[in-house]
């Protein structure tokens, strides 16, 4: 049997690293837009106040960036050591986007980041402003490539499996880049970053108001951040809607798990919390049609036919076809030198069943169901906190425009205390995306248990605890430096 402890520890370590990386990324993406907007106002109005304001948020951006930088590299170490079967099997599909990201990010950041921090007195206002915007755009483009790679795992397209090299080979670069899952995932993640940046700026600005400091700075920052945050959150909702359509189409089990939907059908209900359902809403979310058919967990396992007559085979049939695919793969490899004709026959069988390759590793239908309570509650945390924070931003913007915010200490406290909530919402979103697609590393092609390397559990445990220590240390350092910078405030001379 596969050692389940090895799979669990490898997953836990990867989740820890990815979750830690995602603490820094959304703030980078969102704060970049906010500080660039502030600098734009400075260039348009010529008011030094806005320059000082933009510079302060740039300082916090730099601290977050410095601590976050290279945390993603650890994920690549883990691919090579803990997930070698996966790393080889995905071939250049995964390597190409990550390589583009690495090269592109380095040059964009080395150029525009440097101008943004070193160039205030050395380049023209407009050139500096362009550099600030390009720093933010560069960060967003980096995210594009990472999410293209991730989306391929959720919905593999644009490749062919080569049994000689045991790798997937890219046959259509644009199918990979324009994968519908990648497009909606990128916008959903990017705009969620705007939301994170906005709540961060609003929360810290409210801290200044609570302390009776930096009044103009705080109110002006809140105005810009709440507008960026509201726009970002509305766009998160739109991209989330498109994401739901794709999940329903390409990963129906993830949707069924996120809803705890055992038996599906038309006019499928949306569960607000267990026992409280709104009829038809899940059908609307998943198909944009109240009469749309949404399969439940049992339907997917048993196999089902949609009202339009489209038939989806059962788990057992998929597992059978998966076994046939793997056996044909073994036979092809064994006979390709000695008996080319028999090898060609095996290759044809493999090609016919390749879409079910991963099911050959599944030994019980229950394995095909992700952790339902985890995915269900993570989805509700993401959506619930997201909705709450949107209301908060509307309230803060309304109060600021009506000049009532300074007298509303409860709203200032609520804004400050909302900072952790936006991070929880973001982490919960990734739990839905990643825990919801289990047992797959690559949907239908490779389950998690077949993706791990043959390494010792003890080695993975050791590095897991090492990471816990290192990550905690660096996070503590970041929070300490951030708090120091915030306490000093925007009056500090900033280079």
């Amino acid at each position, binding site marked *: 049997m596969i050692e389940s402890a090895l799979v669990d520890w490898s997953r836990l370590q990867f989740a820890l690293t990815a979750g830690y990386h995602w603490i820094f990324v959304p703030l980078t993406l969102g704060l970049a837009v906010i500080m660039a907007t502030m600098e734009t106002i400075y260039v348009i109005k010529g008011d030094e106040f806005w320059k000082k304001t933009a510079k302060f948020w740039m300082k916090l951006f730099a601290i977050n960036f410095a601590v976050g930088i290279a945390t993603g590299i650890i994920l690549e170490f883990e691919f090579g050591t803990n997930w070698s079967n996966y790393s080889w*099997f995905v071939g250049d599909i995964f390597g190409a986007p990550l390589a583009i990201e690495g090269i592109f990010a380095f040059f964009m950041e080395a150029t525009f980041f440097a101008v943004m921090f*070193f160039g205030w007195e050395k380049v023209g206002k407009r050139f500096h402003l362009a550099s600030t915007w390009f720093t933010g755009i560069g960060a967003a483009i980096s995210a594009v490539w990472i999410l293209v790679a991730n989306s391929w795992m959720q919905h593999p397209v644009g490749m062919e499996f080569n049994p000689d090299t045991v790798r997937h080979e890219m046959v259509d670069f644009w199918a990979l880049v324009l994968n519908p899952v990648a497009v909606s995932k990128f916008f959903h993640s990017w705009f969620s970053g705007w939301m994170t940046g906005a709540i961060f700026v609003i929360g810290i600005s409210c801290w200044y108001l609570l302390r009776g400091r930096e009044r103009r700075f705080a109110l002006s920052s809140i105005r810009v951040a709440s507008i960026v945050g509201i726009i970002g959150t509305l766009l998160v909702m739109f991209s989330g809607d498109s994401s739901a359509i794709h999940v329903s189409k390409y990963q129906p089990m993830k949707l069924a798990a996120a809803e705890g939907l055992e038996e599906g059908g038309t006019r499928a209900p949306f569960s607000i919390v267990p026992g409280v359902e709104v009829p038809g809403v899940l059908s609307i979310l998943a198909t944009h049609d109240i009469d749309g058919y949404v399969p439940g967990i049992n339907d997917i396992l048993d196999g089902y036919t949609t009202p339009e007559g489209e038939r989806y085979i059962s788990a057992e049939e998929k597992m059978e076809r998966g076994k046939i695919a793997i056996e044909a793969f073994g036979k092809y490899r064994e006979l390709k030198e000695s008996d080319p004709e028999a090898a060609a026959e095996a290759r044809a069988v493999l090609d016919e069943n390749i879409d079910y390759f991963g099911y050959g590793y599944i030994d019980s239908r229950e394995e095909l169901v992700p952790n339902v309570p985890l995915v269900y509650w993570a989805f509700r945390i993401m959506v619930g906190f997201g909705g709450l924070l949107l209301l908060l931003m509307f309230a803060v913007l309304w109060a600021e425009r009506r000049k009532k915010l300074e007298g509303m200490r409860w709203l200032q406290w609520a804004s400050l205390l909302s900072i952790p909530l936006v991070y929880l919402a973001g982490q919960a979103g990734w739990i839905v995306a990643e825990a919801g697609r289990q047992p797959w590393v690559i949907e239908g092609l490779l389950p998690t248990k077949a993706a791990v390397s043959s390494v010792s559990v003890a080695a993975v445990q050791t590095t897991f605890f090492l990471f816990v220590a290192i990550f905690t240390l660096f996070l503590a350092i970041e929070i300490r430096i951030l708090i120091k910078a915030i306490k000093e405030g925007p009056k500090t001379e900033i280079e």
Partner: protein
Amino acid sequence: MKNAIISIWNFYVDGFRNMTWGRQLWWLILLKVIILFAVLRAFFFTPVLSGKSEEERSEYIGEQLIETQNRVHE
């Protein structure tokens, strides 16, 4: 061309030289890079496939994928 390169070089040198709070961040980045590459990568994260040729890697992973299926259905 030469002047442009010198200007860019001076831009970076002046920038780094005149840093105040940024210096602390660069030390932090340096420390992190050392921990990542000189400790973690060197001692804990040796790629399983390192030292193997392309062909050996294909062979190894092919065997792993078939063996894993055998172990699953044992």
